């Protein structure tokens, strides 16, 4: 299974809409970095609106892909984190440090635009 990555101008958009097993999550990391490399995208939005649970492994994979993308020069914003997901992540004790977030896709794109204009 692969998570589709869409290109929109200089951005890449990803909406995660499937149950994330470890392999799919790791494959996504690789696919996203390759796509950034191939397209020269400057910004990425990863939308988690349809994700109903994030365990420590998925949190680590997502946090890592943000850092990896930053290394390549692309900014990433995570959007649409649902209330139950936010609550369980804090309960678990997971802090996603330095991960920019926004309420939804629209605000995520605004945030990227602001950051890239600076």
């Amino acid at each position, binding site marked *: 299974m692969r998570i589709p990555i869409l290109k929109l101008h200089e951005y890449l958009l990803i909406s995660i809409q499937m149950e994330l097993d470890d392999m799919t999550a790791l494959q996504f990391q690789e696919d996203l970095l390759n796509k950034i490399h191939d397209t020269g995208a400057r910004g990425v939005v990863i939308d988690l609106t349809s994700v109903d649970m994030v365990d420590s*492994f998925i949190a680590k994979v997502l946090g890592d892909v943000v850092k990896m993308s930053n290394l390549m020069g692309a900014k990433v914003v995570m959007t649409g984190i649902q209330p139950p997901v936010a609550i369980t992540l804090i*309960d*678990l*004790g997971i802090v996603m440090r330095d991960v920019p977030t926004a309420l939804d896709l629209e605000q995520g794109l605004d945030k990227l635009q602001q950051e890239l204009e600076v």
Partner: protein
Amino acid sequence: MAAQTCVDVRNEWDIVSARQLGRDLSKELGFSSVDQARITTAISELARNIYLYAGKGKVCIEPVKDVNRSGLQIIASDTGPGIQDIRKVMQDGFTTSGGLGAGLPGVKRLMDEFSINSSVDIGTEILITKWLR
């Protein structure tokens, strides 16, 4: 209501199966979406621990009843190496895997009840319960 349902945990995909079973049963019992997420996440963490540390084991989930409340009980058991120092693994931030899992303190915070039984070279059994509010 069905009795106990178990998922054997031997590989990464079994973690997903255990998680899905927890999600289905907690929804069926009428847990709030937040508690569904807590239960599903706790199961995912325990199943991952089994896969990472013991190689194989199982996760069993069953509805339970107390005098005046009902809930969901999860038993994660394995016949792996066991835990040397339970006090240590119950401290936040302790890890032997380089931080792959959130650890047992996190699981404890997600649930209402948590108990652990472990013997070196025999195995580990963790029992967690969430009560319906």
